[in-house]
């Protein structure tokens, strides 16, 4: 998401008056975020797994769906990560699993982002009755326990990838909606937005030119964290036997290892790798998301208590998120 240069200049002109970073929130992010090692490491890990997901079939040393060795063969130079209960190569399976897991993660997070973003923007921008109704709905969805609902919906409506993506997306939009609503409300009340309105800008223009660019980084940060939650949720319901039976995901590999008595066979290589991948991706998403939120919420940057290098909380660019 980039803002056209004219809009940026326009914004910069008024932003100083409103006590905002002159480059707009995105430029601010770009400079802040890339200074953070956690962010870069996280992005690196994510890029690696996205690469695996896209180019998997060309990298896999063996065909993951056929037997290429003995049952539960320990790691060797032929099979770097050993073989599973059907004698298939674990390394190939893990690479294959990256695709499904990443698709579920990103697609479900996208669904959640669309629902949460729309609800939050609408609620925060228009306020009034629709705000009350939408927030009421959000409150109720928030108390429905996520995992049991996923289990029931998956059990009732069948085990398919689309169902899993939709279920996860439909459950995890609430926190995004609340965050975006708070941010939208605060942006709407800023002087330059009020001015733009007084100059005759319509709602669409206000949202597109002023609210969205300010809200977008927060929305992206939140979505990245949702990717992690979605991947976690996928492994969870797949483990309970509710995953798509046709597809290999990391969750499925963990389930297979459990069902195929990998533990009894002491075949740690069938259990450890898929879990490490899930952990790494979740960790990476959390790191990226947290670094972004940290950059956006200067209140967290309190200087060093322990080392006594105290500095005043920066007033410029303060986000009035709730």
């Amino acid at each position, binding site marked *: 998401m980039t803002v056209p240069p004219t809009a940026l200049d326009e914004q910069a002109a008024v932003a100083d008056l409103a006590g905002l970073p002159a480059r707009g929130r995105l430029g601010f992010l770009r400079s802040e975020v890339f200074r953070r090692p956690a962010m870069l490491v996280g992005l690196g890990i994510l890029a690696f797994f996205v690469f695996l997901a896209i180019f998997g079939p060309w990298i896999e040393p063996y065909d993951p769906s056929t037997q290429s060795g003995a049952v539960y063969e320990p790691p060797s130079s032929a099979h770097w990560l050993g073989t599973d209960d059907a004698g298939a190569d674990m390394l190939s399976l893990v690479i294959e699993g990256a695709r499904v897991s990443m698709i579920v993660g990103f697609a479900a997070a996208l669904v959640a982002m669309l629902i949460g973003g729309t609800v939050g923007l609408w609620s925060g921008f228009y306020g009034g009755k629709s705000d009350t109704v939408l927030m009421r709905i959000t409150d109720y969805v928030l108390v*429905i*326990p996520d995992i049991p609902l996923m289990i029931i919906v998956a059990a009732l409506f069948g085990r398919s990838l689309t169902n899993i993506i939709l279920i996860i997306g439909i459950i995890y939009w609430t926190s995004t909606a609340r965050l975006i609503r708070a941010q939208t409300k605060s942006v709407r009340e800023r002087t330059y937005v009020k001015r733009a309105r007084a100059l005759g800008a319509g709602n669409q223009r206000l949202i597109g030119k002023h609210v969205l660019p300010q809200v977008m980084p927060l929305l992206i940060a939140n979505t990245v964290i949702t990717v992690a939650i979605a991947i976690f949720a996928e492994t969870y319901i797949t483990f309970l036997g509710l995953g798509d039976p046709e597809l290999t995901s990391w969750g499925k590999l*963990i389930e297979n290892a459990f069902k195929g008595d990998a533990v009894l066979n002491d075949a740690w290589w069938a259990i450890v790798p898929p879990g490490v991948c899930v952990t790494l991706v979740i960790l990476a998403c959390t790191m990226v998301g947290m670094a972004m939120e940290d950059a956006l919420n200067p209140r967290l940057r*309190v200087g060093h208590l322990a080392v006594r290098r105290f500095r005043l909380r920066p007033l410029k660019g303060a986000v009035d998120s709730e």
Partner: protein
Amino acid sequence: MRSADYLIKRILFAIVTVFIAITLNFVLFRAVPGDAVDALRCRQCSPQFKEQVRQELGLDESRWEQYKLYVTDLLHGDLGTSLRSQKEVRGELIEPLKNTLPMIALGTLFAIVFGTITGVISAWRRDTVLDKTGLWTSLAFYSMPTQWLGLLMVLFVAGALGLPTSGIEDPTLGVLGDASTWDVMVDRLRHMILPALTLGLVLYGDYALITRSALLETLGEDYVLTARAKGLSNWAIVRKHGLRNALLPITTLIALSLGFIIGGSITIEYVFSYPGIGLETVEAIDQRDWPVLQAIFLLLTFSVILFNLVADLLYVKLDPRVVEA
């Protein structure tokens, strides 16, 4: 009197949520293509049997009648009959619940104690090696899939500690002569440790992160700057000004998370074959035992709603200003 108003509002919210949950439960189980009985998988499921179950469940009546019947039954404490065992669901769930509660209590206690301590140390010693270690350990545990951590426990920890990895009691106990109550208790506890530890470690990451960020947030307040200007030591600031104010978000967030724990421990019980609500859920999913699943879903929703209410009450107790807003 404003706080009374607030409480009534929150309790009303909880009651409405309960009804929404009940309705959702009803709607979901009837929105299935075909009806729930079609999907039933069991040995004695002949067409006649299915027809009989349909009548018992009132599936031949109108939706509205069904709904009224369902709510009335629930209000009378009737959760229906398990399709597997043909026994009352309520009775079927009591034993698993009794097994689950001490296990998750143990795990949660572990997580609260070690999680908050780690969080406080991390925030107090921000950006030191100590903080980095604490932060990364918490993040790592926070990122691990629950069931996978459980499997790792079985693989790498159980052997070293000599702990049992499945079930809730040693079947050989009491075979040769009587086992004393003490022996039985110790045996149960030994079976409880690994599942509880798995749950505890997953939650540990969560709680440590919550505590750390809540404390850092309060340490950014102006009164902390004042305290520093007064010349208070770091620890005094953390304890008197930081912790006391951070207690509010920490307790509320932990109370909120408690409601979700039973749902989160389903795979743990599955991995350790621990005969609690989680294992019951897995078996009910496996055999498509809808009445049991419905009852469990309600139970878990109620636990979330209950702890939400608890969090609300705690909030008012700890910060009376909330009511004013």
